[in-house]
Each structure stands twice: as C-alpha cells, then as structure tokens.
C-alpha cells in the first residue's frame, strides 16, 4: 500500500437507522461516522442487539439508512436506485454469512459460479474462474459436492469462494465463525487473513468472538447505537 494518504474506501457519514416495532420507534444506529481505508481488516464488536449487523448491512448496500450517507470508492450508495444498487453489490461486495447461505440444490462449483452469472462472462470462463477460486480456498477436490455433503468449515470456504469470485472490493462477514468449532474457525480466519494480505481485500467482519476479532487489524465497538472505542491492535 502506498504511503500517501488515500481517501478511505468506505466513508460512513452521519448515519442513523431506527426500526419501527409495533407503534414504537427503536433507534439502532445514531449518527455514526466511520472511515474504512482500502485494504483494511476491520473487526466490529459489541453486545447483542447493538446494531453491528445493521451497520454491516448498510455498508454492504442491502439496507438503507434513515439519514446520512455511505460512500464507497466515491459512490454514495444510499442514493442508488434499487436495481442499480443490486448491480453495484454484484460488482463490489462479497458476502460471508454465519450460516454460509449456500444454495442447497447447487453443487459447490455451481454455488461459486452463481454470482458470475451476473457478470458478462461466457460459460467456460465462468467455470474456470469458479474452479480456480475453489482451489484457492482449498476445495479443489470437493467441487461437485453439494452443501449437505460438506462440513460447516468446508461450506464456509465455499461461501468465501463465492464471495471473492467476482473480485469485489469489499468483503462483509457477519459472524463468519459463529457456527464453527474452534479448529474450523481458525482455518476460516486464516483464510480471511490471506485474502486481506495477499489479495488486498478490504474486510469488515462482525464478531462476538474476541479471538476472531484479534485476527482483524483494527477493532471497533458498537454500543447502544454508538461507535465508541477504536483500538489499533499490533499486527
């Protein structure tokens, strides 16, 4: 990374979000401001219900804030119309979920190919890229397996392959190790670390797990809708 102070990849500015439950308005995020530089590996921690997932969803462009703006590489995604926002996500965001969210009826390879069907790409190129990506996550020998035939850790690796196959700028991960045993979790975290360091992916990871958070290069805490502590961890 260059030493020159580049503008941050993600600029969250004055973002608020509340939900309506019954007749009641539940504030979740209040005037959040946050810059995420390109190439960062940010861990987002906080108690349950503090709004971690909500913030992550806003950055990933699957939810809209009530106020404020979120600019990614200069594009204010809060102003994009829905269909364009979908295209933006396809090109710019990779999703990693706690429960992997693979399509059970598709094989590992087909799951990884799925986001590529949204890119202009012929069948063969699609297949080759998906295969290469599965090999990258260490599942070259499991391509034809269906999710139900894979362990949790393997499924999450397929999900990670799906997230990076389109070569997005940002990876968002909501408790990616939350459903895994210690060993598999470590493998997944090591893989994410490689994606960050070797491939330069910007990663925002929500986690409850202190040990997982320590794999991130910086950690932020959300509490009662406010982003307050910001501790830089030594690499």
């Amino acid at each position, binding site marked *: 990374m260059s030493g020159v102070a580049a503008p941050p990849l993600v600029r969250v500015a004055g973002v608020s979000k509340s939900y309506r439950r019954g007749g009641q308005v539940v504030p979740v995020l209040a005037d959040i401001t946050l810059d995420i530089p390109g190439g960062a590996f940010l861990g987002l921690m906080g108690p349950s219900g503090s709004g971690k997932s909500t913030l992550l969803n806003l950055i990933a462009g699957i939810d809209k804030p009530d106020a404020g703006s979120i600019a990614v590489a200069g594009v204010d995604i809060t102003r994009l119309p829905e269909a364009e926002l*979908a295209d933006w996500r396809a*090109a710019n*965001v990779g999703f990693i979920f706690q429960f992997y969210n693979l399509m059970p009826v598709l094989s590992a390879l087909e799951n990884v190919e799925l986001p590529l069907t949204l890119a202009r790409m012929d069948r063969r190129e699609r297949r080759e890229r998906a295969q290469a990506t599965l090999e990258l996550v260490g599942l070259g020998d499991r391509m034809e397996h269906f999710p139900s035939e894979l362990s949790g850790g393997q499924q999450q690796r397929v999900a990670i392959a*799906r997230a990076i196959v389109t070569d997005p700028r940002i990876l968002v991960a909501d408790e990616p190790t939350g459903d895994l045993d210690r060993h598999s979790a470590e493998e997944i975290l090591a893989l994410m670390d490689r994606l960050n360091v070797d491939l330069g992916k910007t990663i925002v990871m929500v986690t409850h797990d202190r040990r997982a958070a320590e794999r991130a290069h910086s950690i932020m805490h959300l509490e009662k809708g406010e982003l307050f502590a910001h501790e830089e961890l030594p690499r």
Partner: protein
Amino acid sequence: MPVPLAYSLRNLRARKLTTALTAGGMALVVFVFAAVLMLDAGLKSALVKTGQPDNILVTRRSAGTEIQSAVDRQQAAVIESQPEVALGPGGVPIVSKEVVVLIALPKRDSGVPTNVTIRGVGPGGLALRPQLAMAQGRMYRPGASEVVVGRTIAERFDGVGVGERLRFGGREWTIVGTFDAGGSAFDSEVWGDGEQLMQAFRRPVFSSVVAKLADPGSFEALKARLESDPRLTVEVKRERAFYEDQSAALSNFISILGVTLSVIFSIGATIGAMITMYAAVANRTAEIGTLRALGFRRAGILGAFLAEAVLLALVGWAAGLAAASLMQLVQISTLNWQTFAELAFRFTMTPKIVAESLLFALAMGVAGGFLPAVRAARLGIVDALRAA
C-alpha cells in the same frame, strides 16, 4: 440477469413428492382438457372424413338430416340431369339416390337395442365413396336382399357376422360382407341396394341425392340454380359441409362441457400450484435474501419463481398429454344427435390440441406462480436474511 434456470429446476427435483402431487393435479386437468378436445376432434374427423370434397348432398329444404328428408323421383331426376354433375363410363351421371332409415339392433356388450342407420344406396353410390373398401366377404348384389355392414357395426353388435341374417322391413337380409370406410360415419352404417330397401320399407321417395361434381368450383352456381328452381324444394350442400353441420350440436356440447369442466378443475390445480409455490417461497426466504444480496434483482427473483411454477406446469402438461394420447387406443360410440343413430369414433390427437393444452398448462403455471413469485420478489433483503 435471470437466476439460472437450473436453480428452479433443481428445486423442483429436490421436493419430488410435492412436485409430483402438484404436477399430478395439473396433469389431471390437462388430461381432461386434452381428452375432451380429442373427443371433439375425433367426432369432427369421423364426420368430415365421411364427406368427399367434390360430392354434393341434396336433401329436402330445412330437413337437416337425411332421416327427416324426402326427395321424390321427379326432383331426383332434375338434380341428376344438371350439367355440373360428373359423368361416368357410358355418359351415366355419377349420382346415388339414397334412402336412409333407422333400425334397432342389440349391442354386443350390453344387449341394449340401439339405433343403427341403414342406407339404401343407388348404383353410383360406391363410385361416390372411394374411402369405402370391403374388409370381409363381398359387396351386396343389386336387386338382392343382401346387406353389408360397416366395420364398427360388425365389432359392436350381435348377429351381424358375414352369413348371418337380419330381419327388418318385413324381410330377411343376408349379411354378405363387412366394409371399412376409413373411420368415417359410414363405418357405423348398414348398406344395401336402394331400390330393395325402398320396397321393403314401402317408401316412395328418396332421402337424399348424392352427386359428384365434374368441377368442384361449380358448386355455388349449381346450388343457386337448384335452390331457386320452382320444381324443387331442396337444400344443396357440399357433402363435407353436410356432415360437419351434423357434428355441430354434439361438438359444441362436448367442447362447452369439456372446457367448462377443465376450467373448474384448473382452478383447483392452480390453487394447488399456488399453495406449493407459497410454501416454496416461505421455505426459501433466506435463499431469496441471499440471492438478492449477491446482486440478483427483484425481477430476477420473480422470474426464478415464475419459472419454477411454469416448469411444474410443464411437467403436468407432459404427463397429462401422455395419458391423453393413450386414449387414442380407445374407441367410443355415441348417439349422433341429429340422427339418433350410433356413431363410433376415436379420440384423436392433433397438433392443435398439443398446442392448446400447452397454453392451458402454461396459463395454470403462470396463474399459480404469479402471486408467490411477487411475494418472493417483494421481500426485503435484510428481513429475508433474518428469516434463516
């Protein structure tokens, strides 16, 4: 960008039982729908095959059927002498002055007496019906008390074998042969010599006059002249049109009843498909949220679930149509409503029925899948993902 079709297809395969049951319901509807149309097509084809394109059939004005018609000898002579009528060997006009009466014969399977058409045919009668061929025995001899029976009569009635005798019109008639009229209405008739039958039934007049036109294009001119001739009280039709008109009432009844039934059943099948698809959307809410997060648009989700419903309908269509095709092996008989005589025909599959039943199935698929697909497309991404 659409969600790959494989996704929709695999999901149908993944829930085999539900798919089978839902598609089965649609198959049943397609079966009824196609079978009814096949029945109608079979009826029409039997009756239309009966008429030759260059034959005309003359009956008494507004008689409707040959049974109710009467054409006396003078009138028949006028018709016979028209210049449009084709001439056979020796310059004889190719004409058959025919008499048609009904008798009751016992059916083979039930023993129930059923009306059968007896046709007394003139000398030109066979030249006018090239579709008719002897299947067994020989043709009746003019002037003899002999008859031949159509193929379906031979199959479906008792006591009509070659060599057996029938008693009607105060006489005994020897059955000397069985003929095949190519699936036309003549297959359900008994034929004999016209003059003999007129004597036996003491009928002084013919029922109809059938004539071959030298030039089928001269029909309109001939029809206009004969129908306005003050000596005649006749109606002139092309033979084919005459038989088509005969089938109209029954054909309408079959189609209206059949289509009404199909539409009523289809409501059930469509609701079944809708329930199945709503369940699919509910079960796959998190998947829908995931697809949207990956960048598939609402329209893509709508398309995927609509495609799933339509594929389901296509499975039903294929099964229903296959079952309906088997019906072609079944021969059925019914009363010809115009003549109240037995008329046998087959369920007949036509390309039109294939296309119409396909459209019908697609309509069921779209109708059943649309609302669930809209629900899937309208899900909020975050809400859908939280449903995991």
